[in-house]
């Protein structure tokens, strides 16, 4: 009898201590993220939540993050807080498992275009953790060698084209002006510069829009006389790889290229310029590649999860992330940060990536409700014209037909 009582007592003690201790699980990317987030949790989250008895654990999802998160959400095993990539926002919002943050978190300190990236039907579903935009990253030596001025922040499309053509002419057959990914994820920025919209009011995409054609013709026109080439032509998989070879002068990439070049081409002297402006609109176009923090609508600890989210997006954490050179933070106030005033190539790139988020026509990198297949007709058209298989007009006509079929599904 005594033993039974003792057992019951110890069970009760265990239960009460478990009730007092709340555990918040965070799901995010694998790779280097566990180290970074683990560091943030130890340095900032744990000290702040020590008195609230909240424990925080990070559970990275290896492999395809979106698919793994979908499975976990469907099974009811996802974290209380998780990464929400802006490009898959629609799919996840449709699950009803993402908590709208209106009235839960104050979104005003964050860059407006970033908040828009996580907004659907007037509801905000995520707070941008960090972000990236596109810039022109160039090989200084090749421009010096060709005696052509570097791309600068005031260049128009025509200026860039002239610089690249001259460079190619002066350097000869072995060298190329620019690496062009046959993909919407780079080309789209040019389309936005003309004022083209991805979807009209009925949710349809118009590729026959003259503004789209203007951007398409400019982008594919850069490939004339091999001034522009696709990465596969120099046996590379992406345009950062093109830069690494030292044979291509310009690549359109974001801040992620900096560490890649440091590791793979340490002797390459590179500079960064903002995306060129469209001649007619005098505006640049850009993409926001961003991942946000979101809260699981099924969480049993909503207030604890909100506390964790607020700490992870606090000024102190963002300052730390920026200073470590990990990513570009999403708070407007950090635009005045001392780090951005540095003149080394990496800091200049970071400053321009930050500036890119609020300069010109900036849209979140997103494929709409039907997912990544949306970009397929555009990618096919770009590939067909860049490889010389089709004329621009034919390719655009076919792309529009395919787009109609796709959107009528």
């Amino acid at each position, binding site marked *: 009898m005594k033993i039974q009582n003792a057992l019951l007592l110890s069970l009760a003690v265990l239960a009460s201590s478990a009730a007092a201790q709340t555990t918040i699980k965070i799901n995010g990317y694998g790779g280097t993220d566990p180290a970074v987030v683990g560091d943030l949790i130890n340095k900032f989250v744990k000290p702040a939540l020590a008195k609230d008895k909240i424990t925080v654990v990070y559970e990275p999802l290896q492999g395809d993050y979106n*698919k793994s998160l*979908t499975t976990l959400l469907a099974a009811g095993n996802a974290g209380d807080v998780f990464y929400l990539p802006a490009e898959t926002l*629609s*799919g996840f919002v*449709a699950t009803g498992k993402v908590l709208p943050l209106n009235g839960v978190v104050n979104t005003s300190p964050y860059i407006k275009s970033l908040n828009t990236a996580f907004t659907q039907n007037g509801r905000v579903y995520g707070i941008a953790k960090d972000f990236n935009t596109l810039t022109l990253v160039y090989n200084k030596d090749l421009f010096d060698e060709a005696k052509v001025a570097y791309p600068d922040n005031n260049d128009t499309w025509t200026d860039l084209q002239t610089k690249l053509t001259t460079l190619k002419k002066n350097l000869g057959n072995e060298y190329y002006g620019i690496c062009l990914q046959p993909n919407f994820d780079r080309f789209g920025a040019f389309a936005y510069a003309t004022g083209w919209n991805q979807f009209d009011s009925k949710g349809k995409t118009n590729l026959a829009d003259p503004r789209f054609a203007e951007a398409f013709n400019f982008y594919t026109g850069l490939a004339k006389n091999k001034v522009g080439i696709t990465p*596969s032509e120099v046996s590379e998989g992406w345009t950062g790889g093109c830069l690494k070879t030292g044979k291509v002068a310009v690549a359109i990439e974001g801040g992620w290229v900096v560490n890649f070049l440091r590791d793979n081409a340490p002797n390459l002297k590179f500079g960064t310029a903002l995306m060129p402006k469209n001649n007619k609109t005098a505006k640049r176009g850009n993409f926001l590649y961003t991942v946000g923090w979101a809260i699981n609508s099924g969480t049993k600890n909503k207030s604890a999860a909100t506390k964790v989210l607020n700490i992870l997006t606090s000024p102190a954490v963002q300052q730390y992330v920026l200073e470590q050179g990990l990513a570009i933070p999403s708070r407007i106030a950090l635009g005045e940060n001392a780090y951005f005033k540095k003149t080394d190539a990496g800091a200049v790139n970071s400053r321009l990536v930050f500036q890119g988020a609020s300069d010109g026509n900036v849209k979140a990198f997103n494929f709409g409700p039907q997912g990544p297949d949306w970009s397929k007709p555009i990618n096919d058209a770009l590939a067909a014209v860049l490889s010389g298989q089709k004329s621009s007009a034919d390719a655009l006509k076919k792309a529009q037909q395919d787009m109609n079929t796709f959107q009528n*599904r």
Partner: protein
Amino acid sequence: MTVTNPTAKRPKAARSKQSQTTTTAMLFLAPFLITTLIFFFYAFGRAIYYSFTDFNLFNTPKLIGIEPYRDVLADPSFRRALANSLIFAIVTTTLQTIFSLLMAVALNNKIRGIAFFRSAWYMPSITSSVVITLIFLWLFQRRGIANYLITQWQAYQPIVLTLLGVLIVVQIAQVLWERSRKLPAGWLDPALAAVSALIAIIVVLILNTTGLVSVREVAPYDYQYFADKWISIGGVRVLSIPLLVIIIQNTFTTVPTLMLFFLAGLQSIPGSLYEAADIDGATPFQKLMNVTVPMLRPVTFYVVTVGLIGTMQMFDQVAVIGSAAPQDTLITLAFYVYTNTFKNGAAPVNMASAAAIVLALIILSMVFVQRKFFVAPEAN
């Protein structure tokens, strides 16, 4: 002292032994039966149920009748997947059946080192299909081995063609000369061919040093195998080039396994049949067509059935190639089911289930038709 009744005890003991045997058998079978029940019957039942609902992984399924089937049939991607799967299954099964039969016939001979050839030709079958797909992806890249070899062939064409030309001319001249001397000489006489080859090599060397025949400067051959390219008949896209690459790869990897079945079948054909054919003066081709092929019909049925089921369910190669090729060129029914189940967020699982059921029905009917019309009486 207790009295025992042996006559009453025996049947009881036998019965308990019987039930003990059944229990033991069931216990041994249990792991297999349970997994089959859960992962096949239960899953299949769920798939049928979902195919009539509006299930999207996150909602509570609600019955909506045959609408998912209608959606699936109206989906151009499904139609492409169906066409791709059927073409793939028919072409691959035909190729692999023919090649495995020929290979088995070749390996059934009693020649020196046959054990080596049998194991060497079996190698592709034991290698992981993912690894083989990666190798093929590498072979058929824009700057891959396939294009490299074609470039080399184009560059060395003058030398190779001159060599062949000279060889043929010299061989003909030699044979004619021998015959003019009333000596028996066949067109492919090996001794004369060796002399012809030697002369041809010397001639080409001389021509090459004098600069008359040399390696051509050619631009690298630049064919994109994993692009949106199609073989069309009457304007209808029949077979895509990326799928053709997978057909080649699949044939390469499955031929060895199927060859084993044929080899086993070949060894059970009585030698007397071939002896009789020899007496009748049959050529090797006639023996193949009139003795080997008919005698192997039960094996052929098995090989074709296994081939059709395997090819209709082809998935791994497409999944590994993934976005390296445009989706339409490679999408198969199994891959369609997969992409519609594992999306980012809510997914049309009802459509995926409907497609899976359609796939199962097609395979079932294929096997049924084949069993009904093509199988030999001796197989039944």
